[in-house]
């Protein structure tokens, strides 16, 4: 199937994959960046905002924010420069130092974007939190990330933050985006602070290896890990914007991911701005009719979305090409989980433009493997590695990695380490970080194979991490919360396949003696988990069981629970506990 369904558009930026792959050099990619004036280093926010504000792009719309009521507000690159300078000055006044962590916990409002970029200007580290999290996941991340500043809203503060503040002694400042006055010495009105802050700010010396972004990702065996990225990652935001997202000079682009997840930051904030185009931000959640009319009204050229959304759209009778004017739409991309062949075909037929799946993860900081506008799409495949990225299939042996070169043979998807946006550590967890690497290779935790023509195909996760609505959920974190319920003795959590959201979080619970296993208790446990963790993480289904399958060493066999759930053969149970 040719990717180039629709002609009449400007030629792809990457028009010959093989040629670029063989000629590509990282130094050429870095040469496309400006660097801080006076050789003061490399800063993501300078590349994303200030250099455009000082150019002919100053009056171009950088961010168009669409409110829930469908009215919108445009921010030019020049305005964004001043607002992010003000935020950097606010941090300065609060005594925030280089490397300190600044968190944001809001919906998609301008302050989120301004605080992200302003934090980077201050050379502090920005960490976004998904706004649907409940207090417990927020507490875990704030405390593990040593948060000094939290930007949030009055509503989130009242519902989820106030109660955990006493457990966060290192959190010095809470800045409320919509408070008219300061609440107390610690909880301040961001608007008031911004009003008094100067719109001029000098970005300090920023080294390419200085920490910039912190993204929490879920673990199988422990609490979430904070993957730390550096300013050097900006080169990846730049080139993937060109080669994968195919950004052209006057493009309007919309990434539907929330900045609480890595896609929403790398590609919902940074990549479009670094490339100097117009970035659409919609405050509202998924709504098919609204989404189609945003594509139409704002003349979106490039749309980056997720399989969950595409699957929802597939179920509806709306005919986007005949009901909406989508003549500007040139390209659709998808990430978060594999886009199944039938979804690729449906989307290509429905939208009459190429629909390109790609693969990457929090740790990689940017797209690693992708389909390209100029390359034949094989529906269901994640595509081929970016120029500059070496991907392979390998088997982990005691002696190290053994590469699998045989086409079609499944193994671990691995990446040759050292690309610019590679995570530099898991914060405070160096041992967990080291375990991800075997010699020169980073082991992604995904299983895949490569076909004879070099296309990579996703097979599954090598661990128990749950992929729900494109987000990773760590079973351990959910199990820990379930265990806090007074009726629960033991808990195990799996991802149960579900056609719309990929997997749904399902909990298996062994009750304490004397508890009655009825529907009311199920709902009580779900409610308890929702309150603590939020709807995005809490189990949507609970099953009562009398025991959990475990290894002889006592480790819960989640895979066995999953096999039972699916009615599959249970596989090797030789290490099961004998009871």
């Amino acid at each position, binding site marked *: 199937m040719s990717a180039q369904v629709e002609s009449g558009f400007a030629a792809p930026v990457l028009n010959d994959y093989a040629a670029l792959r063989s000629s590509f050099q990282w130094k050429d990619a870095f040469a496309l960046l400006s660097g801080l004036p006076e050789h003061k280093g490399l800063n993501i926010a300078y590349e994303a905002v200030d250099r455009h504000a000082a150019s002919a792009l100053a009056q171009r719309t950088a961010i168009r924010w669409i409110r829930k009521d469908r009215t919108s507000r445009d921010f030019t690159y020049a305005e964004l420069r001043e607002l992010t300078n003000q935020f950097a000055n606010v941090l300065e006044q609060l005594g925030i130092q280089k490397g300190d962590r600044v968190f944001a916990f809001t919906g998609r409002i301008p302050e989120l974007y301004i605080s992200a970029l302003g934090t980077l200007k201050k050379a502090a580290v920005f960490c976004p939190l998904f706004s*649907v999290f409940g207090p417990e996941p927020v507490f875990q991340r704030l405390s593990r990330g040593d948060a000094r500043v939290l930007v949030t809203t009055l509503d989130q503060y009242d519902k989820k933050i106030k109660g955990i503040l006493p457990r966060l002694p290192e959190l010095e400042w809470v800045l409320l985006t919509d408070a008219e006055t300061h609440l107390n010495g610690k909880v301040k009105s961001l608007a008031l602070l911004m009003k008094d802050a100067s719109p001029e700010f000098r970005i300090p010396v920023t080294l390419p290896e200085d920490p910039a972004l912190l993204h929490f990702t879920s673990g199988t065996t422990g609490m979430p890990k904070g993957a730390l990225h550096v300013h050097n990652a900006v080169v990846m935001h730049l080139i993937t914007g060109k080669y994968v997202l195919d950004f052209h000079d006057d493009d309007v682009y919309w990434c539907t991911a929330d900045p609480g997840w890595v896609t929403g930051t790398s590609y919902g904030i940074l990549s479009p701005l670094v490339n100097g185009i117009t970035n659409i931000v919609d405050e509202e*959640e*998924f*709504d*098919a*009719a*609204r989404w189609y009319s945003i594509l139409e009204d704002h003349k979106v050229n490039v749309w980056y979305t997720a399989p969950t959304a595409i699957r*929802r759209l597939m*179920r*509806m*009778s*709306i005919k986007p090409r005949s009901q909406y004017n989508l003549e500007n739409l040139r390209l659709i991309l998808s990430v978060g989980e594999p886009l199944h062949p039938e979804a690729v075909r449906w989307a290509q037929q429905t939208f009459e433009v190429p629909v390109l799946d790609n693969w990457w993860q929090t740790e990689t900081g940017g797209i690693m493997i992708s389909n390209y506008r100029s390359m034949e799409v094989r529906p269901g495949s994640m595509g081929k590695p970016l120029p500059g990225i070496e991907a392979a299939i390998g088997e982990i042996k005691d002696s190290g990695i053994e590469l699998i070169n045989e086409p079609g043979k499944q193994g671990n998807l691995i990446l040759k380490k050292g690309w610019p946006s590679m995570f530099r550590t898991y914060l405070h967890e160096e041992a967990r970080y080291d375990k991800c690497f075997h010699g020169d290779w980073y082991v992604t935790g995904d299983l895949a194979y490569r076909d004879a023509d070099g296309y990579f195909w996703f097979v599954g996760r090598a661990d128990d991490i749950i992929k729900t*609505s494109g987000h990773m959920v760590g079973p351990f974190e959910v199990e820990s919360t379930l265990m806090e319920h007074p009726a629960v003795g033991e808990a195990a959590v799996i991802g149960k396949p*579900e056609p*719309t*959201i990929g997997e*749904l979080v399902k909990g298996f619970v062994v009750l304490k003696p004397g508890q009655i296993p009825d529907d009311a208790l199920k*709902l*009580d446990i*779900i*409610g*308890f988990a*929702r*309150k603590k963790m*939020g*709807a*995005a993480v809490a189990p*949507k289904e609970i099953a009562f069981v009398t025991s959990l399958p475990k290894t002889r060493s006592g480790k819960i066999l989640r895979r066995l629970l999953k096999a039972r759930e699916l009615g599959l053969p249970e596989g090797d149970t030789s290490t099961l506990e004998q009871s």
Partner: protein
Amino acid sequence: MTEDQIKSVVFRLLKTVAPDTDPTQLKPGDNIRQSLSIDSFDYLQFIVGLDKELGIQTPEEDYGKIGTLKELVEYVSSRRPLAK
């Protein structure tokens, strides 16, 4: 079906997707998903359950029109149950 009867079914079903909340406290103009922290998947389950219980069929493209309690009750009232 009266408005109160519709509301009673709505509240009962909302309580099953968001057991930690009290849907009866919803005001007519409140956005249901936002007020009860219901994600897009849960809302889908809720509407599917509502359709089943009330014998109506709500196309997914209409979900955006029924964000508040008032909109939902009006929407449901305007649709005649499907003939069996």
